[in-house]
């Protein structure tokens, strides 16, 4: 099998790559040299536009277009904020990237800040990852001592201060406007959009918020050109993507894949996940972090039309919510036949209830309701009306909230019922059997 191209992780296995000298010896900071010495900020933005790279935080918004939207009023500072809050269940790729190669992100931050005209930039990292924050701080100090940060970077006259900010344990602070509130020292309550941060962001100034992985693509794009980047991948899903794989697979971990890789190859090839753990078979996959719709085996491997499903924005969403899902943040959770879908759905709904900031009532009340009803069903106290009640509550949340956390809570529930309704009904009709320790619905049992 052909080695696939590595844009981000090519040198991650070099011992000591977290150190400046090793990173530099392996090609590090060459992108920065080129960006600062040979290119204008607008030229860099142009290359990023040409690359077609889309936001790796989950929404997939084209990065170059967002950069182009940045307002530039005279005399007002602009900010770049990197989103390293990574709290979406199933997602741990930014954790991996920052831990392995802090200088890659730092190089990307300097290039991006220069392109956007920011002189103070922030990396917001979830507070639980204090050890990663320490790694970043150390790398920043090294870069500063080497004249790569601070005043007059590489003698070009460009100044940049880079600040690493810890969060405090709140999933909602990954939502960009909640993140900005948090960075201002407040509770993480999302703001209404528009205005988008590109117009009114940190301290009410124009701000670009980008994910860790998105920003880390810029050194390669600057060095090789946006057109080269766009040759990797498939269609509008250009480039590579980090996928965090968890669950019942032989080789969980973080993989850099070329977008367009068939899902089947990703799951079963030894180069990637190596298949499902011994003696078991795949039942379902959540392909893009806990928020995206769950799909049963048949629909994750092939679209409803029978086409092979690919790891790309378009292919994963083929069929809409009826039979598709989303690439999201790339949190790929595989579950074998020992998994109880009802219990898993309840667990996710408990998560969203816990993480709702409580600002809007459909989300605050709805997540509470869904958790309560799912708890009831999982614990043998549900009735058949409960299943429709869940569908109804999920519908009422969707699209009626300030931020997408409400949708994120509704989709897993709605999709689990859409694809695994039998399993919910079995729980309701056979409470005694369903609540036995380790009991999992088997399709043939339903006939009994």
């Amino acid at each position, binding site marked *: 099998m052909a080695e696939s191209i590595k844009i981000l992780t090519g040198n991650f296995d070099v011992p000591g790559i977290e150190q400046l000298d090793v990173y530099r010896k392996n090609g590090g900071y060459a992108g920065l040299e080129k960006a600062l010495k040979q290119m204008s900020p607008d030229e860099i933005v142009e290359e990023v536009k040409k690359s077609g790279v889309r936001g790796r935080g989950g929404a997939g918004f084209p990065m170059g277009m967002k950069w182009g939207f940045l307002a530039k009023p005279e005399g007002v500072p602009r900010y770049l904020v990197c989103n390293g809050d990574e709290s979406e269940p199933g997602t741990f790729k930014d954790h991996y990237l920052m831990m392995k190669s802090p200088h890659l992100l730092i190089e990307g931050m300097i290039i991006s800040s220069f392109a956007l005209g920011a002189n103070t930039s922030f990396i917001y990292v979830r507070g639980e990852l204090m050890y990663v924050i320490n790694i970043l701080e150390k790398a920043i100090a090294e870069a500063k001592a080497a004249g790569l940060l601070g005043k007059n970077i590489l003698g070009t006259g460009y100044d940049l201060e880079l600040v690493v900010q810890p969060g405090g344990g709140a999933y909602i602070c990954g939502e960009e406007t909640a993140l900005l509130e948090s960075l201002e020292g407040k509770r993480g309550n999302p703001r209404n959009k528009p205005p988008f941060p590109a117009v009114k962001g940190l301290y009410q100034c124009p701000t670009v918020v980008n994910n860790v992985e998105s920003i880390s693509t810029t050194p390669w794009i600057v060095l090789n050109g946006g057109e080269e980047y766009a040759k990797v991948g498939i269609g509008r899903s250009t480039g590579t993507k980090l996928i965090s794989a968890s669950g019942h697979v032989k080789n969980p971990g973080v993989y850099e894949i070329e977008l367009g890789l068939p899902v089947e190859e990703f799951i079963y090839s030894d180069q990637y996940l190596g298949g499902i753990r011994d003696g078991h078979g795949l039942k379902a996959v959540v392909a893009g972090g*806990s928020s995206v719709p769950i799909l049963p085996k048949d629909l994750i491997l092939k679209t409803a039309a029978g086409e092979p499903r690919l790891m790309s924005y378009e292919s994963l969403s083929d069929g809409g919510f009826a039979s598709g899902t989303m690439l999201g943040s790339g949190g790929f959770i595989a579950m074998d036949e020992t998994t109880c879908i009802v219990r898993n759905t309840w667990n996710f709904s408990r998560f969203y209830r816990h993480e709702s900031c409580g600002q809007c009532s459909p989300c605050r009340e709805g997540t509470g309701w869904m958790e309560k009803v799912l708890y009831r069903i999982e614990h043998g106290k549900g009735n058949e009306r409960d299943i429709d009640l869940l569908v109804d509550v999920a519908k009422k949340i969707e699209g009626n909230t300030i931020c997408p956390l409400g949708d994120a809570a509704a989709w897993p529930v709605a999709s689990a019922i859409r694809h695994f309704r039998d399993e919910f009904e079995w729980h309701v009709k056979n409470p005694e059997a369903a609540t036995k320790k380790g009991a999992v619905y088997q399709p043939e049992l339903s006939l009994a």
Partner: protein
Amino acid sequence: MTETIALTPERLEKAKEIIARYPEGKQKSALLPILHLAQEQHGWVSPETMDFVADLLSIQPVEVYEVATFYTMFHLEPVGKHVIEYCRTGPCCTMGGEEVYAHLKDKLGIEAGETTQDGLFTVKEVECLAACGWGPCFQIREKYYMHLTNDKVDEIIEELSK
């Protein structure tokens, strides 16, 4: 007086460095980092600490309370020497996280939110720690403990009880 209680001179120095990172007049941005610093020293964040931090940042005490109560990482009551923050979210549970969690609580003889009699351990339930492929997992302060099994939990607890 509270000054010496809330932050050691070294940490106070660090706090001042942190405040200086933000633009003029935006010192409130230093709130989360400084609460972390205070918690590192005391193990938890007391009302006195919060008042001290408010003073340090020239903001109202209520602005600090509001924030400290919103973010789950801040302990608002005294805790044991080792706070075990156990991930109870889906992917970890898929990998047997619930069984290992039950074993941990059994071994310590406490429930979530409680502290052992000897004051050594507190167990806290947390959500996904961004280590799902390396789960089940928990964290104690900065350290992640991953690929947990019942045996591994026993070893860790014994090691930390010494």
